[in-house]
């Protein structure tokens, strides 16, 4: 039993170790350099990653509230990898920050919440994990205390996530009222698609919709992304969204499987609206962070198309896509973050002529954007097309046509940035940026990931094997 506990929860325990370690250091008033703290955390994260890959085991503990399978372990590893990349990228920003230690406290707490959420076998456990992951995020959004915009963003974030949590909780309590249990397996066995169950499901879906910022629940996204410090924005758009998507697919596919026909049409409408609105708004953005915010909304639309396929290929493609999305979006945010911390510039126009002075960074951003747009040979091509292919299995060709057309719209605005960097003339482009070692490592991981994950099918095969 004790052995099980340590074995099954080892990723969580590692994170708890970091949290308590940092707390004790803080309490002990240790005068550590920020660099030291960051390196320590990074090392433990790498250890967590390694441990996640080493031993395989599955099981349930805590009275069947917490379960672990190889697939869940893989999902946790993907998130840990993403967090590690973000931690490396935030070097520049945190180096001189007064509260680096607290940042890591909050960051690791949210990650811990996500891990519990992923491992939940029970709606209550899921809700606990979700709250643990959301509340520290609001504090992180406001981490640059002197910025007014950040405070506004944090306020928006806390209000909207409280609202969505309330909706979710409402749905969960109705579900409990109908079924008499909150465990996934009990609900899956009991539901039959009655109107009340559909109502409860809609509440739960709306809660999820807020968290993954699907249209029409997306209104908080752009402001929060713009106001938050860039590492937090990338964390929000990649890790937090990825975790919710992983849980979303578990809830849809294992808990509400018997209602598949009902929620297919809900997802259909959400997907179309999300793709269209996300893309159309992204076309007009001038601020890089807002631009990436809307592009990430549009990406969720494509993901919803894939999820609507309801097959093994759908789950596989979703996890595969999130992995690729982590690499691509973090590469894009990495470059934006370097530019922003060096010159404080976040406008698209500031990137004019960027290629002349920073060719490598320009190529990195271009490859990341190509991957987000789904252009070969980058991994994004495979991720996006497998999602659409998974969605096409249902034979709804109208949805597939809309998705395909949206890919073109999205290509247009991704190319705008490429055009600014490579083609537009600028008498005084941004000066050469000296990239410190750790952001450099992060960018290299991302680019290698973008180029390898798609061309070499190993990752997809592995995920497929775990899913089926």
């Amino acid at each position, binding site marked *: 039993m004790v052995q099980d506990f340590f074995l099954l929860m080892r990723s969580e325990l590692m994170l708890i170790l970091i949290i308590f370690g940092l707390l004790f250091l803080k309490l002990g008033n240790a005068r550590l350099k920020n660099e030291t703290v960051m390196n320590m955390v990074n090392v433990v994260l790498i250890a967590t990653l390694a441990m996640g890959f080493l031993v395989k085991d599955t099981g349930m503990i805590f009275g069947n509230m917490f379960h672990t399978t190889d697939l869940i372990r893989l999902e946790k590893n993907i998130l840990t990898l993403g967090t590690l990349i973000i931690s490396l990228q935030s070097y520049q920003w945190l180096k001189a920050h007064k509260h680096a230690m607290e940042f890591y406290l909050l960051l690791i707490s949210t990650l811990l919440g996500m891990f519990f959420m992923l491992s939940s076998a029970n709606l209550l456990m899921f809700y606990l994990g979700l709250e643990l992951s959301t509340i520290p995020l609001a504090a992180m959004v406001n981490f640059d205390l002197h910025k007014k915009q950040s405070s506004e963003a944090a306020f928006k974030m806390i209000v909207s996530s409280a609202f969505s949590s309330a909706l979710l909780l409402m749905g969960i309590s109705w579900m409990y009222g109908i079924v008499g249990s909150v465990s996934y397996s009990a609900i899956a066995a009991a539901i039959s698609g009655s109107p009340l169950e559909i109502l409860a499901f809609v509440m739960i879906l709306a809660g999820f919709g807020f968290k993954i910022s699907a249209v029409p629940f997306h209104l908080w996204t752009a402001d929060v992304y713009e106001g938050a410090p860039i590492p937090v924005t990338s964390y929000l758009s990649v890790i937090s969204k990825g975790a919710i998507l992983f849980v979303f697919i578990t809830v849809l596919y294992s808990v509400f499987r018997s209602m598949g026909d009902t929620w297919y049409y809900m997802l259909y409408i959400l997907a179309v609206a999300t793709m269209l609105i996300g893309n159309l708004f992204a076309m007009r953005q001038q601020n890089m962070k807002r631009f990436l915010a809307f592009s990430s909304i549009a990406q969720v639309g494509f993901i919803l198309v894939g999820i609507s396929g309801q097959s093994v290929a759908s789950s596989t493609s979703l996890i595969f896509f999130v992995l690729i999305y982590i690499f691509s979006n973090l590469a894009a945010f990495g470059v934006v973050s370097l530019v922003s911390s060096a010159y404080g510039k976040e406008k698209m126009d500031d990137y004019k002529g960027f290629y002349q002075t920073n060719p490598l960074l320009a190529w990195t951003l271009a490859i990341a954007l190509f991957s987000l747009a789904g252009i*070969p040979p980058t991994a994004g091509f495979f991720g996006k097309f497998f999602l659409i292919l998974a969605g*096409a299995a249902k034979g709804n060709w109208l949805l*597939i046509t809309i998705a395909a057309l949206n890919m073109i719209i999205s290509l247009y605005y991704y190319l705008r940035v490429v055009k600014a960097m490579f083609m537009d003339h600028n008498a005084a482009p941004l000066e050469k940026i000296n990239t410190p070692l750790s952001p450099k490592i992060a960018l290299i991981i991302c680019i290698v990931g973008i180029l390898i994950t798609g061309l070499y*099918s190993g990752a997809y*095969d592995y995920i497929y094997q775990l899913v089926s």
Partner: protein
Amino acid sequence: MNLNWLIVLPVVSALAILPFSQLKQVRSIAAIGATLQLLLSCVLLYVFMQDPASSMSGSMAFESSYAWYKPLHIYHSVGVDGISIAMIMLTAIVVLAGVLISWNMEKMSREFFFLLMLLSAGAYGYFISTDVFTMFFFLELAVVPKFLLIGIWGSGKKEYSATKLVLMLMGASALVFIGLAGLYFNNASGNLSFNMSELAANPLSVEQQKFFFPFAFIGFGVFTALFPFHTWVPDGHSSAPTAASMFLAGISMKLGGYGILRVATTIMPEAAHYYSPYIIVLSAIAILYGSFATMMQTDLKYINAYSSVSHTGFVLFGIGMLTKTAIAGAVIQMVSHGLMTALFFAVIGMVYERTHTRMVDKMGGLLKTIPFISTVFMIAGLTSLGLPGFSGFVAEMMVFIGSWENGGTLHRVATIAATASIVVTAVYILRAIGKVIMGPVEHEAYFEFKDARWNEKTAAIILVAAILVIGITPFLINHLITPGTEAIMGKITPLSP
């Protein structure tokens, strides 16, 4: 012979360029790479022709297959028949000529040659794929390098042209993808499959074919300047730098024709019969509209770009006729137009480099000062108007004869209408030649011009030689492609009503 070398070689030469930054090093690597590509293609042609089992049967030769995304039944499978080899030879010739023409590309030379090599890798991969997903991958691989080539090294309203081109081509690929997904899920075998021969053996039901054929046809058609989706052609071609124009018009536009032949018509034959009248009407419009629009142009690049719309119209026209001779004519027209238009763009580039204008009415009497370039100019023009002895004549003649084999009234009328374009072509070509090449020398400065340098001469000679080989000994290429076209006809004809 392992066909994957055709992909590996350009990719390796592209990567080999990256560590260097000097123009001299970069261009030598690119030239070596392109020469090796041509040699490899010649070896492939030789081995293919030597082996009667592959060259006479019409089935795919040198096939190999690797599981790529096995759970999704996606394989990287390759194979060639005579048609693919003809296209591969075309690609190799045009790429080598393109590298030679860009010999003095000072601006960002490393990136330029890198993208050029990447483009050629996409084209080779496309022509050897026998799995439609892999084919689609290579089709899209070639799109973004075009955007960068036009947008960075182009002239005129280059950003506009580049964006227009890339959006239209990506839209086309999206349509192609829907068509391919339809084949993947609905083929009669009941298995999910992207394999070309498996799909052709288990066709969709007639209703499904009628639904998915337009997606695949229009998608590929946009690449081949299908009317009314041809608008990217004039802008894209005229804004692009010389080598990119050569590649775009010479190879990229052929990707579409090849795709229609291999995927749309072969896998969905009944729909091809059903939609044949529409294809004929649209391509006849393209042929006539293209040639009349060319008459109005005064910029040499626009002349060639609009005439490309007209000439590639013949490719779709031939395919739409669904007769053996017409399809063979369409394939030869793809090769012939690829060579001719590459030569034309090359020579326009040479003229522009000297006169600094592309306007027909601002030039004159070039034959007296730069005879070599002017002669090549004339050869390109005469090929374009279909003079016997050059490749254009063979191709267009075969398309017309093949069209006449199709007895439908609409098809007859369309054929008669399309032949009218020959006259119009003669008008604009002869007018351009007369003004630019003949007549009095326009400026004193023209006497100072230096004739073609060795690299320009080599590029032109390679292209002219290929045009003459097809023009004088058409049976060679006919012999190469006939088993392939017969195999395609075997899929189409028995099903005709």
